[in-house]
């Protein structure tokens, strides 16, 4: 009898083929009450995944297509003068939903970007002096195309920190691709998806994930990892305390998804690339050797025991 977590993963997995790890990461991020950044080329299933997540988790869903002419008000909402009542009526923007897909966030101006990011951080929106809370749970999946593409406004590093995780979806493998080509339209499948839990359950799971046990040995390991990023010269700067906390939070949720009541180093390792890679930068004078990503090197340099 699969639990709600397995069902959720299976549900999203039926739409987004062969991406179980990424789905689990997204779910981890959600359970940790964090926001997710998906960085990939167009057409890799970013939208599909977020839509599917919203469906199985039974969350209200809105998609905001970020374009260069998008204004903050288009995201947050506007007060419009109502002739009948003679008052200003607030028309909530698309951000007022439980799961918001902020598509191609790097296409819009920094001004609109920061409107979204502020709302993400504060979980409320202040317009014309009035503060309006965003729904609970509130979960933003932002997507962005790799920065090399023209006409984009890449998110500044300080803003990237607002996202708990950053993942890449990548191409599907051959098997998945074949199924995709042969099978029915994913959109149809998507429509058929049944919710696996309700909002209250989701919140309960979020609370439970926070209670996953973390031993001293594991904290040692996390500290060693963090310490390494601060000391080793290949890192331009080390991981911030917020980054360390994020790592711990995600490791807990991952362990929860794995149906474990304690965190093991493998949990940390599973989430580490997604949690730290957008928070670190390679030192300028250390580029050019070693092909593996920064986080991968971190994992193979810091031992689990010691």
């Amino acid at each position, binding site marked *: 009898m699969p639990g709600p977590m397995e069902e959720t993963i299976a549900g999203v997995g039926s739409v987004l083929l062969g991406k179980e790890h990424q789905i689990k990461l997204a779910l981890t991020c959600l359970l940790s009450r964090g926001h997710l950044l998906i960085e990939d080329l167009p057409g890799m299933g970013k939208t599909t995944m977020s839509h599917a997540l919203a469906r199985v988790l039974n969350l209200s869903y809105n998609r905001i297509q970020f374009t260069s002419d998008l204004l903050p008000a288009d995201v947050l909402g506007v007060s419009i003068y109502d002739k009948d009542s003679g008052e200003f009526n607030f028309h909530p923007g698309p951000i007022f939903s439980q799961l918001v897909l902020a598509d191609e966030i790097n296409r819009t101006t920094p001004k609109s970007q920061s409107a979204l990011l502020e709302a993400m951080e504060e979980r409320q929106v202040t317009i014309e002096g009035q503060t309006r809370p965003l729904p609970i749970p509130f979960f933003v999946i932002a997507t962005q195309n790799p920065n090399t593409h023209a006409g984009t406004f890449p998110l500044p590093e300080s803003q990237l920190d607002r996202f708990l995780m950053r993942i890449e979806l990548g191409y599907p493998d051959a098997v998945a691709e074949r199924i995709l080509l042969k099978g029915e339209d994913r959109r149809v499948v998507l429509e058929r998806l049944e919710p696996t839990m309700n909002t209250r359950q989701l919140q309960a799971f979020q609370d439970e994930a926070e209670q996953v046990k973390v031993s001293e040995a594991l904290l040692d390991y996390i500290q060693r990892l963090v310490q390494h990023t601060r*000391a*080793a*010269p*290949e890192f331009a700067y080390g991981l911030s305390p917020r980054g360390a906390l994020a790592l711990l939070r995600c490791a807990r949720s991952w362990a929860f998804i794995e149906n474990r009541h304690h965190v093991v180093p493998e949990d940390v390792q599973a989430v580490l690339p997604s949690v730290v890679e957008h928070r670190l930068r390679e*030192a*300028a*004078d*250390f*580029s*050019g*050797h*070693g092909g593996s990503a920064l986080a991968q090197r971190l994992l193979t340099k810091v031992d689990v025991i010691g």
Partner: protein
Amino acid sequence: MNSSANTPDSTVWRSTRFRQWLDRRMPPSNAITLDQKKIFILPTREGVFFSLLIVFMVLAGINYQNSLIFALAFLLASLLMVSILHTYRNLSGLTILAGGTLPAFAGEDAEFTVMLSRLGARTYEALLLGWNRDLLQGADLLEDEEVKIKLFVETRVRGPMNPGRLLIQTNYPVGLFRSWTWVDLDMSTIVYPSPVPAGDIPVVSASSDEGKLLAREGVEDFYGLREYQQGDPLKQVAWKSYARTGELLTKQFSAFADRRIWLDWESYPGMDREARLSRLCYWVLKLDATNNEYGLRLPGVEITPHRGVEHREEILKALAIFEVEEFELEQVS
């Protein structure tokens, strides 16, 4: 054009056999942790004198039949032996990591960053490292777990440069023994040609349509006055000056017409290869400083005009490795 000419301390490499032996014993690697296989240790000149001192002391002890003189001599002899262990310890377990490198222009010093790293409680003091035995740089690893050290190596000729094996040695604590190692961190950098000021900007062979790019007469930047010539646009006549002096002058503007400049090998006919490259290099720097778009044409190489740091690096690299033999390039990549 030989990269070994760029190896600073070539005397050390007299013996190829020693080199081969070292290569087998310590293959090149970006990260090397020193252990007994890699550390050599021998007494220093001071250590030899110290041993002689001990011999004198023992002789004094014998002749004076003085037990405490013996004791002192033996204490110093034991110190000598113990210092071997300490000097060895002061290298063993040390990890050396290759860091980044900064390219240089021939004749300047290329910068190599290496990192020393220690494990746990063991500390290292008074380490000396460098590629040139006479120019070693000191480093301590006491409170810090890791230190970055920038080392500079003199360059002579352009091309890829591999500084060879890095000498790391220490005499600490008592200077009676020297332990050392030669590690190949597999680091390399590129040495650009040394820029030589070349009078005029090399205008352009007409081999390409987009080639005609620098025009003296532009419209943007005021450049100077010259005598009016038939056909000059009236717009450019310096009327104010004419009113004052009665002399008809034309305002000259300069601009890089579409600001896309080709730096061309053929601009310096008659010069030898290095001279040409040096002058091209000079112009690369010049044009980059003024934020122009420029491209490069060498026999067999063409880089389309662009601007920015990466572009500059690309062009400089092309200049650096131009006609450098294949195997040397492989070494760098």
